[in-house]
């Protein structure tokens, strides 16, 4: 549920620049040899998702390089084909058609919410698995799984809604809250799932206010919230609107506590709004359990390769995991066809079997005739019957006095209901 229109974080831009520099400096790879296995990455290199895409591409590069360094899949070299989907539906259809028809990829990884929804029948018709690594849309809650060719390695907005609701009720004891939501796809979807879960679990939304994107004044909305005199406000808004809203509320003398979604979890939000205003603000991020080996391993490899750490909320780990899981599925099947991947993806990801955290480890286990459970950098990566995963843990981040986001608690969310 990352808000696509949110102000781009400085780090994202830096990441993009690094990727560009590396991309152009790298020697031209040789053309695909007959027998290479191709994996497609279909993301919004241009358009709204443009700022986020280089990070995903990096994660894909890292995965493919690791696989090749380990000798490839089934002894064949793996080739990454990255395609642009213009962050749009029509672009996704074209890009996917190219990946399948021209490149004959074994799987398509990466499409965001709208694009993957548009590719549902395409995936099945062409027998090519399409795996999103960032789509929060509820449309996929019951749509995927073995046989449908649709998967995602990130958590659904519905699940995040449950996480928000459970944490507010159980950890914070917050039975009432005012909900402020910006009218954007990501934020609306996040707010809707939260409302549903919160009310079902016994919470009460005392007021719901919708912010129109792109306004400079939200005075009327601030007043509407103030009428109910809440002590905590849930903000599901993008950066620009978020900064405006909290500043204007502060100027009118309201000292609300804020609970925010991933859109606002960045240093930029703190800097733009001012520490004195947003200090104490809490955001839960989905994460691997603390000190998980798979995460540490991925994070170190990523940093070594690209000179920066992967960002929580950037879906790099989810993208990396999708590639490794597909590679293992091919290895398990002994066949690089889309059908083989679809049939084995859920199997190699667990939850039963020997736990493995890298391609090489998984391949060796498979060769030894064992069942495996790939433990991803992003989480346990256990696909359920609908091709969805749950998030093992949630990290509660809070803005401290010095303006940094600090982890105040890590909560085990693996047993939370899926939606």
């Amino acid at each position, binding site marked *: 549920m990352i808000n696509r229109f949110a102000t781009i974080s400085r780090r994202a831009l830096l990441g993009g620049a690094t990727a560009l520099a*590396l991309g152009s400096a790298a020697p031209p790879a040789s053309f695909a040899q007959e027998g290479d296995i191709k994996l497609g990455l279909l993301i919004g290199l*241009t358009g709204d998702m443009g700022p986020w895409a280089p990070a995903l591409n990096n994660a894909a*590069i890292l995965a493919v390089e690791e696989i090749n360094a380990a000798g490839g899949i089934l002894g064949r070299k793996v080739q990454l084909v990255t395609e642009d989907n213009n962050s749009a539906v029509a672009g996704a259809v074209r890009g996917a058609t190219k990946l*399948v*028809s021209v490149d004959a990829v074994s799987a398509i990884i990466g499409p965001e919410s709208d694009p993957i929804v548009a590719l549902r029948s395409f995936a099945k*018709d062409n027998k090519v698995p399409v795996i999103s690594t960032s789509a929060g849309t509820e449309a996929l809650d019951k749509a995927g799984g073995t046989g449908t060719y649709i998967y995602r390695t990130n958590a659904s907005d519905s699940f995040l809604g449950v996480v928000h609701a459970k944490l507010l009720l159980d950890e914070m004891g917050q039975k009432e809250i005012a909900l402020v939501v910006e*009218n954007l796809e990501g934020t609306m979807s996040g707010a809707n799932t939260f409302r549903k879960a919160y009310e079902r679990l016994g919470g009460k939304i005392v007021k719901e206010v919708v912010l129109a994107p792109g306004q400079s004044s939200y005075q009327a909305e601030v007043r509407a919230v103030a009428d109910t005199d809440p002590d905590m406000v849930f903000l599901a808004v993008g950066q620009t609107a978020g900064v405006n809203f909290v500043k204007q509320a502060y100027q009118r003398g309201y000292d609300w506590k804020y609970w925010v979604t991933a859109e606002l979890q960045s240093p930029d939000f703190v800097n733009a709004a001012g520490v004195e205003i947003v200090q104490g603000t809490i955001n839960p991020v989905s994460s691997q359990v603390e000190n998980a080996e798979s995460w540490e391993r991925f994070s170190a490899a990523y940093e070594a390769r690209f000179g920066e750490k992967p960002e929580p909320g950037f879906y790099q780990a989810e993208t990396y995991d999708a590639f490794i899981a597909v590679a293992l599925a091919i290895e398990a099947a002994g066949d690089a066809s889309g059908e083989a991947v679809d049939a084995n993806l859920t199997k190699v990801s667990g939850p039963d079997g020997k736990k493995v955290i890298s391609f090489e480890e998984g391949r060796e286990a498979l060769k030894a005739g064992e069942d495996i459970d790939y433990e991803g950098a992003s989480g346990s990566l256990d696909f359920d019957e609908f091709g969805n995963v749950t998030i093992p843990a949630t990290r509660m981040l809070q803005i401290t006095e010095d303006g940094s986001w600090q982890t105040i608690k890590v909560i085990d969310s693996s047993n939370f209901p899926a939606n």
Partner: protein
Amino acid sequence: MEGILLFAISIGTLAAIYGMVTLALNLETGTGPLWDLGIVSFFGIGAYAYVILTAAPAEGHQHYLYGFGLPMWLGVIGAALAGAVAAWFIGLPSLRLRKEYFLIVTLAFAEVLRQLYINEDWLTNGVAGIYGLEQPLRGLVEARQYTYVLFALAICGLLAVWALTRMISLSAFGRACKALRENEALAITAGIDPRRTSMVLYVLAGAFTAVAGVFYVWYNTLVVPGQFSSDLTFFVWTALIIGGVGSSRGALFGAFIFILLHDSLRFLQVSGETAVTLTSLRTALIGLLLILILRFRPNGIFPETRVVFKLPDRAKAAEGAKRKGLA
């Protein structure tokens, strides 16, 4: 080889859909006097009207109230009507304005409509959109071959729009539109009512564009408000300007060449690593090419050509004039 053909067919389908819109825009702007910067309005109206008429009722997590589940052909007719009615509504206030203002107002209307798609959740399912929509003649062939069917349908649609817009622009009505485009005051002295004529033209363009919107739904199998931003208007305008304003051949060519330009560069990719660099270069490359085209073909690749009639013999005409005592 078959793979490349399939891909070409797929982008050809999209080009055909854009071609329909470009032809409709050419009818308004090339033949007629209307500088329409809001053509995406009708594209969106057509798509949404079709979806609301034909979609199945909403599932649990969706919010739209109406999905009438009507047959597709009714949806197409409904979409054309909706496009026509929308054009009429937008035309009522905006066609009173001068060219430059018409441009601004149509652009604004397009944005207003997009906001409506976003905010009128009960009708459009808001930003989440409506998805999983059916495609026509789906059961006829094996799933993988369906690309060809949709392409054939889109080409038929394109041919129909091409034939109709061409017939219209060559007719007496079309001449009146051209006259308005060229010299409104003089056209008035020929008994041409600018507002009425423009309205008819605008409504026609609205209906054609709306039908193109239905094809777009078939192509994407979903509707979301983000599909109907003014990017599409500018895309179509650029295609028309490259192809040649006022020439239906130019409009067609422009739509196809512009899409092909975008997508043929996908083949330049060498490795995943260079993809990010190449993609940003792609946009620059297309820009450069457009500049070059307009530098050497300022009126487009196929500029407007003269309408040729089989003219009567000159000498005979002179004689006839003399006989009537006119010369």
